[in-house]
């Protein structure tokens, strides 16, 4: 009886081996990046790039593009052009043309996050211009445009003004109540790419943007930040000049007060910074001058923060998750009610900027 069981078990295991599809790494074509464009006739144009690894260790990039009504069928159409089966398991970048993004990207997001092969840490981005052109362009920075975009985003998240973003963050803020998603915007230049601000989404539709300078305060408001640089114009008497300040530690604290059933926000920004560059006429030995820098910065940053928040309210998007802030503090929070109140909500920002270092830099 025991032996019967063992034989049964062994045969089940051996027969089941047929159920797992083999995807040997050099027999599949690893898609690195996908770009979606909208054609004038309403169809979707999908462009993929995949790396070709040569034996001597060199890498080159290949492109394929196809036109279809749905994103999923694109893959099938692309397969008809590809020498090896296309596999999405190494997908790193998904790009949306800005016109395409204005119409909504949910169907694509949906198929991405339901595919277990696709990682949650993949980057999404809105492109100003044609994604096909962007992906097929040649860049001097790296041989693969996909790796270029990925490293560009990673690097900016780590050391610049870009807040943390990937598929997971997007889906969290898309499906979360009281918070709206955002994506980075990329622009193609002649031989390089540029990060060009942040795209704001209402539901899955691209509705507005903030620029690179504004995303400095956006990052601090969103998640606190220890990175980023800010340029400011200084004025003293008749002399003018620019100064660059590096953020050492920026935090935001949200206070919510309810007045007649409408939440009122009081956001406090606290930023510690370091003077990187300053006009030669400014004598930093003098405390007053440092205070001048601090004062100007406080004013500028406060202005920026107020500006972007006003923009968010005007566009009726909530990438900062203010609704979520209220939800945390309230028992019977109703998303619908908050949405109606949001555009006219009173949101005040106060900034406290402090220069902690001005000497030797880095």
């Amino acid at each position: 009886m025991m032996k019967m069981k063992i034989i049964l078990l062994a045969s089940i295991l051996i027969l089941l081996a047929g159920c797992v599809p083999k995807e040997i790494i050099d027999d599949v074509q690893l898609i690195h990046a996908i770009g979606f464009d909208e054609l004038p006739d309403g169809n979707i144009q999908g462009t993929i790039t995949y790396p070709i690894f040569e034996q001597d260790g060199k890498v080159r990039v290949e492109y394929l593009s196809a036109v279809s009504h749905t994103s999923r069928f694109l893959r099938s159409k692309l397969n008809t052009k590809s020498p090896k089966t296309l596999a999405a398991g190494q997908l790193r970048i998904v790009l949306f043309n800005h016109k395409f993004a204005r119409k909504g990207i949910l169907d694509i997001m949906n198929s991405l996050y339901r595919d277990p092969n696709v990682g949650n840490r993949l980057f999404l981005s809105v492109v100003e211009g044609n994604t096909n052109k962007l992906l097929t362009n040649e860049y001097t920075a790296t041989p693969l445009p996909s790796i270029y975009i990925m490293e560009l985003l990673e690097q900016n998240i780590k050391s610049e003004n870009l807040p943390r973003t990937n598929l997971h963050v997007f889906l969290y803020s898309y499906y979360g109540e009281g918070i709206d998603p955002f994506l980075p915007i990329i622009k193609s230049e002649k031989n390089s790419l540029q990060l060009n601000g942040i795209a704001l989404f209402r539901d899955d539709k691209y509705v507005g943007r903030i620029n690179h300078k504004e995303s400095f305060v956006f990052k601090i408001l969103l998640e606190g930040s220890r990175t980023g640089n800010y340029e400011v114009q200084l004025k003293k008497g008749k002399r003018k000049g620019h100064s660059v300040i590096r953020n050492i530690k920026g935090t935001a604290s949200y206070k919510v007060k309810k007045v007649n059933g409408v939440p009122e926000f009081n956001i406090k920004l606290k930023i510690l910074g370091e003077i990187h560059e300053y006009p030669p006429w400014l004598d930093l030995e003098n405390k007053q001058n440092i205070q001048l820098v601090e004062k100007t910065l406080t004013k500028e940053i406060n202005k920026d923060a107020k500006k972007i928040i006003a923009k968010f309210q005007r566009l009726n998007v909530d990438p900062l998750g203010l609704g979520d802030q209220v939800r945390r503090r309230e028992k019977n929070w109703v998303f619908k009610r908050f949405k109606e109140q949001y555009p006219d909500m009173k949101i005040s920002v106060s900034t406290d900027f402090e220069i902690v270092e001005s000497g030797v830099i880095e």
Partner: protein
Amino acid sequence: MMKWLKKKPKEQSHTIDLSNNTYASIVELIDNAKESADFIHYPQKTIHHNVYISYYKAMIDGELLHRDLLPYVIHNKDFKSLKDLKDILPIESVTITKDIKEIQNKLLRGFILIQFGEYDEECAVIRAENGATNRPVSVSEIEFSVIGPKEAFIENLDANLYLIRRRLPVPELRFKEIVIGKFSKTRVVIAYLEGIAGKENINTVTQRIKDLEAEVIPDSSYLEQMISDNTKSVFPQLITTERPDRVVAMLNYGQIAVLSEGSPQALLGPTGITEYFVSPEDYYLSWVLGSLFRFIRFISVIFSTFATPIYVAVLTYHYQMIPKDLLAPLISSRVNIPFPPILEVLFLELTIELLREAGARLPTKVGQTLGIVGGIVIGQASVEAGLTSNILLIIVSLSALASFTTPIYKMANTIRILRFPFIFFAANWGGVGIVIAMCFVLVHLLRLESLGRPYMAPLYPPRLLDMTDTVIRLPYNRLLKRPVSLGTQLPNKNKLKEMRKKKDIDE
């Protein structure tokens, strides 16, 4: 249904009990012995009368016969009866006996027989064993250590017992002798420290060895397999060691050693799986270093078992897992390879196994050359010929290297073959397959026992007190406890706290 699956009834054994064939009379014994060419039986003239001297030529010390026996027997005037031999010979072991069985056994062990008449029943048996053919105690080669004693056991049981007794000169060290083997009559010694080793364990070992029905025991490894709890397991359940210092340390821990005549290896038990990765050097180095090296050894075992299966699984099924920076080297090294990963891996693993096997069978010097030629030339050539990838070559050779770090040779061999089922499972079911294989191995290990004690102890069942000397080795003043899991009679040494203090300052 499926009759061939059912167990066939056991056949009765019909071997004849040759060796225990005791002869009825001394005549029969001597006549039978004469059939062997090395049996000498001749009359010798002495002053008073003739005596008959018989012995197995190969078994006795010829010099002793010529120097200490014959001159006295021939020239001594007092030699009138057999009893006089006791007085005139400068040898302490002279027995007068009529017991045929005893005479037979002693003759075969290198005693000299003296009779008055050719077939006299009363004989004197004089001890004259040949000890000259013993190998001297030499440097341990299998379990080499840089620091610490270099002595290793030899093929002579008494010399081995001396090596142990010299390090433990206490009466509590007991040697229990059992003779087993119908033909070989091998002396097997069970060594333990009375009062420290668990009584239950001693009884288990004694009973298991006594119950053996072997004909010849050429080496203690035979014993090891015969008295193991699970003879089907690939895991060794008793430690085989050639180091007396290890035996002594483990006796002190409460383990039991089994030594057998003609074998340069002692067996130690009951053991837990962690002990197979312990090298005596761990104790000779400072505890930080010792623990670190031991940890490296554990890691290398895990690496050695899982490196190639994971390679196969990832390249066949889970390309999603590969980090983007590793993608380029992995794929570009595999571009021209015509085989799926499983064949590629089997090809290289078998090459390494071949090299290892060939190296082990050849004399040392040829073996070394073979290792270098095989390793470098075959490896490099197979990469250039496009049979295997560069990265796999590194993985396979590293995992081979890692499997050599296990100090106990038998365990190293187990680790060496353990990866093949893993590779097979990985090739068929990917990562899930590796987990399935791991489950099988873990369940097997959990069920395994060494002399009735759990093999996974102290990891499972967890014995925190014993952990002080498993994965990490704590300093000696924290290490005074004997393993609980061995069932030793003295689990704690007293005055632990007192002993931790250093008493050099007078306050």
